[in-house]
């Protein structure tokens, strides 16, 4: 007890926040996996998982146990260091953005004044993990997947940053808490609809989800960069992907959908998290619907769309925003 009281309170706060966030990441992955399979089923007019628990609700728990219990195979010719490093590199940086996201007025691990920049830099490490994994696998399909991931990430990072920039021009801050605070009266999605659309499209591309899932296109590259991974290595990539989706949806909520703002609740400064999560999961539901609606784009279509449509439109949007703000 004495040791705890001598520790600086900020450290204890961070440790508690990290523990909650890591457990939430696993919970989120389980929920998202279940939702994904259920929605996929109903879109195709099937039932989806039904066997384990009520309406298959424990299916992903069982799958998780199976994945953890599986042997982690390391093929002979792989680059062992890179091969083992990649899943860790994919999983670790996705925890960090959640530390600066304001879930409600008082539920935030750390209010960085450069919060948005921090999130952007951390989420771009994910593509590094894909490149390391694809290169380390020493396999042509994995390599192709990794190359595609890099090209795609470079192309879509620009519109995502430009659409964020439009919001920053209006709020004049990079702190996520202050950006949400500025949306007390009106959500930015109404003032910046174009930036919102650009952000959602590039966000889906950033997280390598269908219809932009070229790095892991099953029908072309077997599984792309994670072809050679089994067991826990694969599950870390999987966790990383779902947490990245959550981060993208959270940032969209913070920037455009008014964060924790909603009809007032008792203990509003804490229970604002309810509105925050409702908005985030609505966006995630939308992303899942998109995955099960559209076919995968071809690679030239993917890059054409980013450079010919998203980048010019976001530049025009910034120009207009800057002029309006200046006036």
């Amino acid at each position: 007890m004495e040791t705890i009281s001598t520790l600086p309170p900020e450290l204890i706060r961070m440790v508690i926040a990290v523990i909650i966030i890591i457990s939430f990441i696993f919970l989120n992955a389980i929920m998202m996996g279940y939702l994904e399979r259920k929605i996929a089923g109903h879109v195709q007019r099937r039932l989806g998982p039904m066997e384990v628990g009520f309406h298959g609700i424990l299916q992903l728990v069982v799958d998780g146990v199976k994945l953890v219990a599986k042997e982690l195979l390391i093929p002979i010719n792989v680059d062992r260091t890179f091969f083992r490093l990649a899943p860790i590199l994919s999983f670790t940086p996705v925890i960090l953005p959640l530390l600066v996201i304001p879930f409600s007025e008082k539920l935030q691990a750390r209010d960085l004044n450069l919060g948005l920049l921090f999130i952007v830099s951390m989420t771009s490490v994910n593509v590094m993990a894909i490149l390391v994994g694809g290169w380390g696998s020493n396999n042509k399909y994995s390599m192709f997947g990794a190359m595609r991931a890099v090209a795609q990430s470079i192309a879509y990072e620009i519109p995502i940053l430009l659409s964020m920039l439009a919001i920053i021009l209006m709020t004049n801050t990079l702190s996520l808490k202050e950006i949400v605070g500025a949306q007390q009266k009106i959500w930015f999605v109404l003032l910046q609809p174009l930036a919102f659309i650009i952000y959602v499209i590039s966000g889906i591309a950033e997280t390598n989800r269908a219809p932009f899932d070229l790095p892991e296109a099953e029908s072309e590259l077997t599984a792309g960069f994670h072809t050679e991974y089994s067991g826990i290595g694969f599950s870390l990539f999987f966790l990383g992907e779902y947490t990245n989706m959550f981060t993208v949806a959270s940032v969209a909520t913070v920037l455009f959908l008014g964060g924790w703002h909603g009809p007032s609740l008792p203990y509003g400064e804490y229970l604002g998290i309810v509105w925050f999560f409702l908005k985030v999961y609505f966006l995630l539901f939308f992303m899942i619907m998109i995955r099960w609606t559209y076919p995968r784009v071809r690679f030239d279509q993917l890059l054409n769309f980013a450079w010919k449509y998203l980048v010019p439109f976001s530049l025009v949007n910034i120009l207009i925003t800057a002029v309006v703000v200046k006036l």
Partner: protein
Amino acid sequence: MKRYFLDLFIGGKSLVDGLVVTTKALFQPIVTVQYPREEIDITPNFRGHIDLVLDPEKNTFRCIACGMCQRSCPSECIQIEGKKVEGKKKKTLGLFALDFTKCSLCGTCVEVCPTQALEFSKEYNLADFSKEAFHYDILKRLEERII
């Protein structure tokens, strides 16, 4: 330039159309069957192995043990024996055995029967570890249905 915006408009509209289709499908009733728990009715034209028809009036079989089916069977998988019963002039059916491992489900026996005593059953869950499990005693199957 006109083409650029036209592409954007047409593409955007097709994306919205696609989402409308899947969103509708999301709320429509499912069309699949949870097989071991639910089963759908077998089509009336389904040909399972043959069975004796249960005559609702006499509450027994219509077979007169004439042996037409046995003779007409191209793969000789039917075996019939008649037996004498005290007080009756004609023979009645004593044994109706079917070797289903040889049967090709041609249906000649059903067609040739003078009393329409044979029909196709709707049995399709047929799997076993031994050949002998498919040597059916059709008469016994009928007696089980009489009660």
